[in-house]
């Protein structure tokens, strides 16, 4: 099957990839661009392990063809923070034990990031509803919810200081 060249903006960098029209974005990210933070958990868009941010929306990257992402701004877990400056959510997930095996974590944090962008003052109910597209088998969500609420609190305080 013929391939076409696509250009994506991934984590602030413009990158090119060769993709068949049927190729899923998650496969191009993981296998060509070596972005292995987003994971594959189901390939039917139920689990959310492959969640990335496309042009300011949470998207399950097993649900889009790579060619559909032509020219789009994509943010993955790798783009949220770095070892020298973690994102508040990354810190809070650790602090509140919001992860165990780590497989759902990149998608979960990427989703939580978008949720807090859209709603900086979430209630527990908002968080539980907002991350319900991302499954976790280890934590029972209780500490994930705690971590997201704590991150929201810290981000708010940061804004007040600024």
């Amino acid at each position, binding site marked *: 099957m013929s391939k076409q060249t696509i250009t994506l903006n991934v984590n602030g960098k413009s990158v090119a990839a060769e993709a068949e029209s049927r190729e899923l974005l998650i496969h191009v990210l993981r296998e060509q661009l070596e972005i292995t933070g987003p994971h594959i958990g189901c390939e039917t868009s*139920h689990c959310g392990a492959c969640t990335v941010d496309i042009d300011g929306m949470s998207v399950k990257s097993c649900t889009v063809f790579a060619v559909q992402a032509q020219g789009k701004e994509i943010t993955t877990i790798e783009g949220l923070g770095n*070892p020298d400056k973690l994102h508040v959510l*990354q810190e809070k997930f650790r602090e509140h034990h919001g992860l165990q095996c780590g*497989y759902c974590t990149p998608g979960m944090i990427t989703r939580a990031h978008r949720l807090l962008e859209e709603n900086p003052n979430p209630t527990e109910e908002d968080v539980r509803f907002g991350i319900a597209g991302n499954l976790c088998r280890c934590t029972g*969500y209780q500490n994930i919810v705690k971590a997201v609420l704590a991150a929201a609190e810290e981000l708010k305080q940061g804004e007040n200081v600024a």
Partner: protein
Amino acid sequence: MSATAESVQDRKAALKGLGTSRKRVEDARFTQGKGNYVDDIKLPGMLFGDFVRSQHAHARVKSIDTSKAMELPGVVAVLTAADLEPLNLHWMPTLAGDKQMVLADGKVLFQGQEVAFVVAEDRYIAADAVDLVKVDYEELPVLVDPFKAELSDAPILREDIKDETEGAHGARRHPNHIFTWEQGDQAATEAIMKEAPVVAEEMVYYHRTHPCPMETCGSVASMDKVNGKLTLWGTFQAPHVVRTVASLLSGIAEHNIRVVSPDIGGGFGNKVGVYPGYVCSIVASIVTGVPVKWVEDRMENLSATAFARDYHMNGKIAATEDGKILGLWCHTTADHGAFDACADPTKYPAGFMNICTGSYDIPTAYLAVDGIYTNKAPGGVAYRCSFRVTEAAYFIERMIEVLAIKLNMDAAELRAKNFIRKEQFPYQSALGWEYDSGDYHTAWNKALEAVDYKGLRAEQAQQVNDFKAGKTRKLMGIGLCHFTEIVGAGPVKNCDILGMGMFDSCEIRIHPTGSALARLGTISQGQGHATTFAQILATEIGISADEITIEEGDTDTAPYGLGTYGSRSTPVAGAATAMAGRKIRAKAQMIAAYLLEVHDNDIEWEVDRFVVKGAPERFKTMKEIAFASYNQAIPGVEPGLEAVSYYDPPNMTYPFGAYICVMDIDVDTGVSDVRKFYALDDCGTRINPMIIEGQVHGGLTEALAIAMGQEIAYDELGNVKTGTLMDFFIPTSWETPNYQTDFTETPSPHHPIGAKGVGESPNVGGVPAFSNAINDAFRAFGLTHTNMPHDHWRVWKTANDLGLHG
């Protein structure tokens, strides 16, 4: 002296040892997307494997035509059983003493069974080629109901062993029968069932489900023909066992095989066994000379890798009229699917189902389990439990409730009346176990008080009255559970997997500057071993947990171990860690005595140093000792500071817990809502309370899933009805309640640090608590027992059958 006392406390805190809610060292890489799971492994020239699978549950394979697939550009090989047969790899041994087809050899026995293995340049081409393989099937009658397996018109499934009257676990009475396993005193128990004043009887079905970790199973095999070395990365909960099996099957010498478990995205028992995909990736790499990756998709995971449970448990429980239990009888029909691929220690074909007397002092008991072949996927793994203890706990906790109904007695009171008392430990159970320690009454009373049990019962009674008066359409259920686990297999004399004794191991190296590396025979799948094992060691050797690296999962470097499942890491490898630490300390004591110029007996251990008795100002810290061990010639002492321990536990450990679930149920829709869940766990000495609590939250959510909807269901033709996450229930954050956790602490008397293990307790105890809540809600309307999963439809149906819809 207060300054000294303070500094001891400070030094102790600095170690971050036992009892500390230390933050996890694993989290840095996981939160930054830098975990390294099997599908992240990418090697030069790597090919992808994909399976042609059977769409039939039972059929003869008349022919397989791979020619069209081979013509597709990018396809490198298509393997069938005929290709594997010369290598004697078309079948493989299972962990349960049976054998399993790697690729269909003449027939298929379950939907989703592996028929051919396509190897191609990328996963898309492999998937295309799968569609081009033509398999000609002749359909055969299908057996899905284990109770019909021995009827005269039942199809014979396993033609390969149809004439064998002896299996791995004794006599077989029918070609579809695998084994009968009996424990306890049948005659005495059956006599009690005839004579006892009260006998309650129930058929309790624990349905088929699946561990379904977020990461599916997979492997990458790389045969280096130049050096004759095979490297196999994969989702292995027991990498050393995989190495030994791979060596025995392939004929490659064991030192030339390196098995690596990288980060594992959850296991829950799904990743204990050996799957055809692992074998095929190895063979494909040997055949092609380049690395081959195989990673299953979710549908393959749910329909072909190991299921859990599927036990039909017929029970009788006898008691006096005032509720003293006299005896327990159980006959279980175990649906094992097409091959007996249970992950149990060799001598236990039904795992530890004989822990089914639970937390109770039951003087006489009998258990029989019949294993049966059906046209379903093989498995029978311990889904977050220790070898069928979940089935056992569910059985006894339902039977107690059924007995309470028969006696017209409060179920909490009935439990308390029959608990094994504190002073009875170590307790010898009627079915052969020696419970190490427990204090059930204390835990139970704490739980009842915490939820205001009396208040809840009063509220429930009022609600029943209101319901009957037409004032509400809601009912309330109180789900009680007191479970006793049995975890930490060994001992070696009782427990082995494929002949390998179930010990575990730890090897420690102290570096000259006083930091350390410890390697273990276990492998974390999210349990946080790199965090907690360092804590055990920190307390033992006085080096901060932050300065101890824990490594697992690489068989070229880690000492031999039996892996992580059945909550055995803390009871067995945790003990090995403590024992290896004590060897380090013993040598350190000799070095310290030499440096301090006193006799060994004149110094004593204090947190992180040896101190001269009566002269607290004279001491040597572990760091000083470590340095000295490398840079000084010490008479009679070898240089360096290292130790290894292979630990064979004297007994298993018996964690326990008291769980109470309060559920509100809408009678007209069948929708249930967990109002409160209180979970008290006693796992002996607590290593990291934060991680314990996290494990409890996660295990309870798995229990919620199983009890309330999660099921691997088949139709009458053997079609899997629950092959995707649309049909297979995994609770989201929206459906999952908050849990209230609590604890008591009864150390294990035989474990070096008194720890018992906790990871699986919430699954074991959670399922009966949720299920009992549903059952309890309808007790006032005449319900004795209804089977799981309690999804909305089934709960509605229960209400409807009881005439509650008017």
